[in-house]
């Protein structure tokens, strides 16, 4: 019972973070700001709910679901910053989205 309550609390936190991230994807107006919203929606909105799913499945005795959930949560926690940095680097390097106040490319162009 207590594991189910903990899991539902984690799932509720994740639902709020995911909804805020999804709203932020439409409210922000450049790609780098949207990257912030998507990262909040991914780490806060997917990592905690996956742990919550693991708790609820442990209460019900579904042990394969527990293993997959914990493994997926750790993978999300590790791979989301790597993917976000790769996308930001690609958008800046390939000049798809220009940075307005770029402090790192000044000497290269002069």
């Amino acid at each position, binding site marked *: 019972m207590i594991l189910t309550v903990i899991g539902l609390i984690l799932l509720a936190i994740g639902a709020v973070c995911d909804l805020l991230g999804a709203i932020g994807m*439409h409210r922000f107006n450049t790609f780098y700001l949207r990257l912030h919203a998507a990262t909040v929606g991914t780490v806060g909105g997917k990592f905690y709910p996956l742990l919550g799913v693991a708790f609820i499945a442990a209460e019900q005795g579904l042990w394969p679901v527990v293993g997959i959930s914990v493994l997926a949560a750790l993978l999300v926690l590790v791979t989301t910053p*790597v993917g976000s940095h790769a996308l930001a680097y690609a958008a800046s390097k390939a000049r798809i989205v220009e940075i307005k106040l770029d402090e790192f490319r000044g000497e290269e162009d002069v």
Partner: protein
Amino acid sequence: MIETAIYILFAVYGLSGLLYFIRLLRGPTVVDSILAADCVSLDVALIALLLSIYYRNSFLAVGALFLVLWAFILDVFAAKYLTRGEVGT
């Protein structure tokens, strides 16, 4: 209790996935679409895990792991292609 909570969670995560999908279709640049596809695939993985709890069936959870890995591979390979012009080497 848990069935009612899972219905509400399906609604909220489905709404979030729909908003991400609208951004995937409308994204001004290709990196916006890639980012939204990343979020949509993680959302679908979470909904699949919730379905496996709702039906008490472990076989529904297997696809979630591949969706999580696919989101990471999409990010890294798309960034490599946009930076270098090709994926290999």
